[in-house]
């Protein structure tokens, strides 16, 4: 199929970007969206032009790098998938596709479609860890964990930190990400010692990074490739309230 692409081009964080229009032809419906971009870039290189910069790594939906905002949707129109898992059979010959980077002030554009998501790393550093004694590894089943909690924790741990929640949120809020990370650790006994400080510190860091405030709109949940539920945000709210009310958050 032949397609028209309107792609965001931006030299760096200091300059203003703009859309540029490209034509790609002979695109197979079996290609992934990223492979279609590979074809475009090969074409641009052959023409002696600069290729479009975009993030990608595993190309199997687990690394969270491929951050494209496609026709108004994070990772394109399919639910529970990443850009690399979006296939060209979604599109018809002659379609025009608008591709933008994640837009949030906390995710500054590095180049074209590549954004800097280090703000997520700093949020993790502020509390997304547990303390483990050195020495021999503890037996995996030494600490009993309630089945439901283990399942909920695992579901939260599915978060790949791609930032689609921020990209999709009208407020550019990172609450779904932070709530997944807080839930994942705080539901388990290993996460208990830092539990209260974790909730408060990660929320503080999230605010410092310049993410918006959650207003329970739910676009994050709708766009999350891993199906992270809004229940995690409810849990983060509870964790935060209980940390503040118990006063233990001050030791953070």
């Amino acid at each position, binding site marked *: 199929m032949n397609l028209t692409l309107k792609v965001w081009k931006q030299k760096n964080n200091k300059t203003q970007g703009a859309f540029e229009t490209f034509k790609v032809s002979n695109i197979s419906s079996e290609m992934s969206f990223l492979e279609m971009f590979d074809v475009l870039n090969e074409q641009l290189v052959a023409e002696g032009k600069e290729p479009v910069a975009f993030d990608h790594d595993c190309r199997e939906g687990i690394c969270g790098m491929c951050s494209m905002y496609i026709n*108004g*949707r994070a990772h394109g129109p399919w639910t529970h998938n990443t850009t690399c898992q979006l296939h060209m059979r979604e599109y018809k010959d002659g379609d025009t596709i608008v591709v933008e980077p994640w837009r949030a002030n906390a995710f500054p554009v590095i180049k074209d479609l590549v954004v800097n998501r280090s703000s997520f790393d700093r949020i993790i550093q502020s509390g997304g860890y547990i303390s483990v004694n050195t020495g021999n590894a503890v037996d995996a089943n030494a600490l009993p964990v309630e089945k439901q909690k283990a399942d909920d924790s695992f579901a939260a741990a599915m978060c790949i930190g791609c930032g689609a929640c921020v990209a999709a949120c009208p407020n550019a*809020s990172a609450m779904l990400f932070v709530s997944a990370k807080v839930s994942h650790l705080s539901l388990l006994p290993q996460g208990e010692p830092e539990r209260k400080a974790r909730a408060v510190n990660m*929320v503080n860091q999230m605010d410092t990074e310049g993410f*918006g405030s959650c207003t329970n709109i739910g676009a994050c949940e709708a766009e999350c490739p891993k199906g992270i539920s809004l229940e995690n945000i409810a849990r983060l*709210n509870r964790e935060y309230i209980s940390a503040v009310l118990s006063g233990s958050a*001050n030791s953070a």
Partner: protein
Amino acid sequence: MNWKHYFNTSIGKKLQMSLTGLFLILFLIVHCYVNAQIFYNDGGVRFNEAAHFMGTNFLIRAIEFGLFGFLILHIVQGLMLWSSNRAKRTNRYAVSAGNQTSKWYSRSMALLGTLILLFLVLHLSKFWAPNRYSQLSGNGEKNLFEMMRDEFQMSWVVIVYTFGCISLGWHLVHGFYSSFQTLGLGTHKYKGFIKSIGIAFSIIVPLIFAAMPVAFFMQWIK
């Protein structure tokens, strides 16, 4: 860190919106119950009795100060949140998801709230302000039933009230659920229940309110 800090984080601001919103929901229930007394169609006897109690009881009058305080906090914090959240994405998307990933009313709380505020200015200037002024200047309470009957003869007033109630309904559909989600109750166990109650509340209460001007205008209540 202190309480002021905790209430000023993003979750703290959500909590301010949630708690003041829940208080305003409680107020709506009381207001609706008292005003629904007009439907006895007894020439306003029961309504005026209830209005007299609400207008003169010391405790209710004290709570009225709290009501205005919470209302102003809800409005100011809401508008500040709206503006600061907008500022978090300076470069906006060329194409947006719109209704594909969220409901329009959940994205339009500031707009719906502003419409309710405009309605409130008219509403308070028509009933609350003249009545309190009359009380404070020593002329006693006004006959609120007669005031309603007179005001709701004007079709434009009835139309504005109807639009005010519609805005309130949509604001509540998101606000009711959202306030409980902020308190951490949006779990799979309660979420469906809260959403259902919220939708029922958002339909029933504004409908009863809207029925009042309409009933006077249509002369169903005399």
